[in-house]
């Protein structure tokens, strides 16, 4: 009743092919953006920014990148964290060695470096698919992190191995407080998500989806596999690179290889599995899920510990978290293999009919 598109007529091709053709969707998105840009910076606590909102947004960006590669183009990759690391270290080096470089250009440069590395490690995808490609990306993950640890020039010959990220400054405005960092991250992520959505709707997105579904058939109808696959790797690594740079500058405050371990790669993979492969919304929903669930779990364990006085050791919390994670992944794969985004889609479809059953 409220969500009908009845009465909304399109009178131009542009209106017809808009991202959000239904007015209620546009209003909904406007409300969400208003809350995100205006209400939250005014109302949220610094803890909420630094522990929940900022990592959710940054990891959502990385999940978006991995979703482009695995969800749209069908190339399974376990090396997302390595490309994030490349982006972080490249941005650090740009800011360090090019005096006066604009910060956003440094981030973009980090993304471009990550894209270049992504193309190199994406070359095997032209010959191998499926798990074998996953192993190739694992090779990328371990090799890249090893390189970043061993090659002194990248870390500026830092003896401790932990580099403090420089302060973020754009046109004289420094981004020090959690609020300012949050707004910067939000702007970058929103713009890149819009770009990703448009890419997915356009020619290249359709080429990727054709390759994912059956690459032999895609080649038969004239899609150039090498270009499309390498482009998928490049774009995905660009997104992961920018996310990595943001991860170092806006979240951790340090640039270190250990933060981009295999564990992070798996977390990002879980984000897109739980969120929904092949959707932009899925990256955000999955990221929120993976960031918030551990916090909820530890709060719950602590609450139970305090009320029931069980004397539960802290390791129980982290082990329970592992079990719940694993269990949830299996649960989602059995019950809704298309993830939270599909659940949202089904909800919207039911809303269109409400209050009627069909």
């Amino acid at each position, binding site marked *: 009743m409220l969500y009908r598109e009845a009465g909304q007529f399109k009178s131009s091709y542009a209106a017809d092919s808009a991202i959000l053709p239904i007015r209620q969707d546009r209003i909904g998105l406007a409300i969400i953006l208003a809350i995100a840009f205006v209400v939250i910076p005014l109302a949220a606590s610094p803890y909420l920014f630094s522990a929940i909102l900022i990592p959710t947004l940054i990891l959502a960006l990385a999940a978006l990148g991995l979703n482009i590669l695995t969800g749209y183009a069908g190339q*399974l990759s376990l090396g997302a964290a390595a490309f994030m690391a490349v982006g972080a270290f490249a941005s650090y080096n740009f800011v360090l060695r090019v005096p006066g470089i604009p910060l956003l250009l440094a981030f973009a440069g980090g993304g471009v470096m990550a894209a270049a590395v992504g193309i190199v490690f994406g070359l095997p995808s032209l010959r191998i698919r499926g798990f074998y490609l996953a*192993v190739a990306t694992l090779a990328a993950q371990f090799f890249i992190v090893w390189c970043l640890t061993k090659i002194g020039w990248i870390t500026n010959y830092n003896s401790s191995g932990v580099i403090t990220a420089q302060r973020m400054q754009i046109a004289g405005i420094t981004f020090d407080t959690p609020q300012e960092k949050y707004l910067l991250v939000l702007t970058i992520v929103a713009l890149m998500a819009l770009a990703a959505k448009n890419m997915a709707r356009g020619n290249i997105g359709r080429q990727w989806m054709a390759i994912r579904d059956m690459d032999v058939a895609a080649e038969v109808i004239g899609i150039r596999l090498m270009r499309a696959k390498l482009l998928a790797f490049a774009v995905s690594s660009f997104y992961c690179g920018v996310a990595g740079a943001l991860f170092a500058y806006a979240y951790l405050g340090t640039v270190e290889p250990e933060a981009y371990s295999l564990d992070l790669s798996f977390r990002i993979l879980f984000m897109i599995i739980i969120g929904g492969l092949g959707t932009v919304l899925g990256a955000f929903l999955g990221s929120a899920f993976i960031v918030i669930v551990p916090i909820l779990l530890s709060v719950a364990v602590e609450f139970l510990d305090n009320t029931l006085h069980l004397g539960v050791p802290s390791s129980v919390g982290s082990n329970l978290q592992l079990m719940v994670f694993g269990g949830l992944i299996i649960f989602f794969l059995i019950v809704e293999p298309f993830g939270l985004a599909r659940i949202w889609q089904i909800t919207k479809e039911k809303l269109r009919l409400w209050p009627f059953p069909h």
Partner: protein
Amino acid sequence: MLSFVFEVAIGGLLSGVMYSLVALGFVLIYKASGVFNFAQGSLVFFAALTFVGLTEHGLSFPVALLVTLVVMVIAGLLIERLVLRPLVNQPQISLFMATIGLSFFIEGLAQLVWGANVRGLDLGIQDEPIAWIADRTGVNVSKFDLMAAAIAAVLVTGLGLFFSRTRIGRALRAVADDHQAALAVGIPLQQIWGIVWAVAGLVALVAGMLWGARNGVQFALTFVALKALPVLILGGFESIAGAIVGGLIVGCTEKLAEVFIGPHVGGGIEGWFPYVLALAFLLVRPEGLFGEKIIRRI
């Protein structure tokens, strides 16, 4: 100098045997059900931890071994029933990701039940060089590694005999070839999968005990599973002989690379060398040394 190369090579071969044991579990499950079981590493960890936990609680070696065996078999059957059966016709990638989730679950469960301390596992054989050989040739070969190789040989022979001589083994091979044809002939698919997972649990137990005795029973044991991936790629996903040969190659080249190339580039090569080797191999011979050449019709 040459004896040093020899020593490193033999040490590498013997550690490769350990990788083979883990890869064996992968191969068994992949052969029978086409599922790449990422949780094999956590099963190894769980088996080792259960065994050590039981011995710490006072059970004697053989009793603890028997109980752990039963636990692993039950675990295998439960996994097949609860995780794999609901996902029967899903694409391979969903099954793979389900096993990743399963590995997290098993790790958490193992540590929840038995605690996260590093424990030693004593099998009674020391990790010392055999004096007899060391005196004659100057090459140090560890007693423990040789025993591990012997156990692996026994296991592989046992499995080989099981597959070729018994009815159940033949049924397993039939299921591995073609599920539908096996169903048509009357082979109960669900039972076979249950048996396969139980046997994989047994292999995980053997691997867990050997690895645990070598490196101590700790969380890092689960990452052994990741090392088994290059082994499988080199050997082929469906071949037991491939798992052995692949393990030997990976173990040997990894150690040789670490010792001879490592110092020139700063060390720590062991972490990625097997993967890069597997990658190079994939580009040349994607199905591995002993794997079946997959002709993808569509």
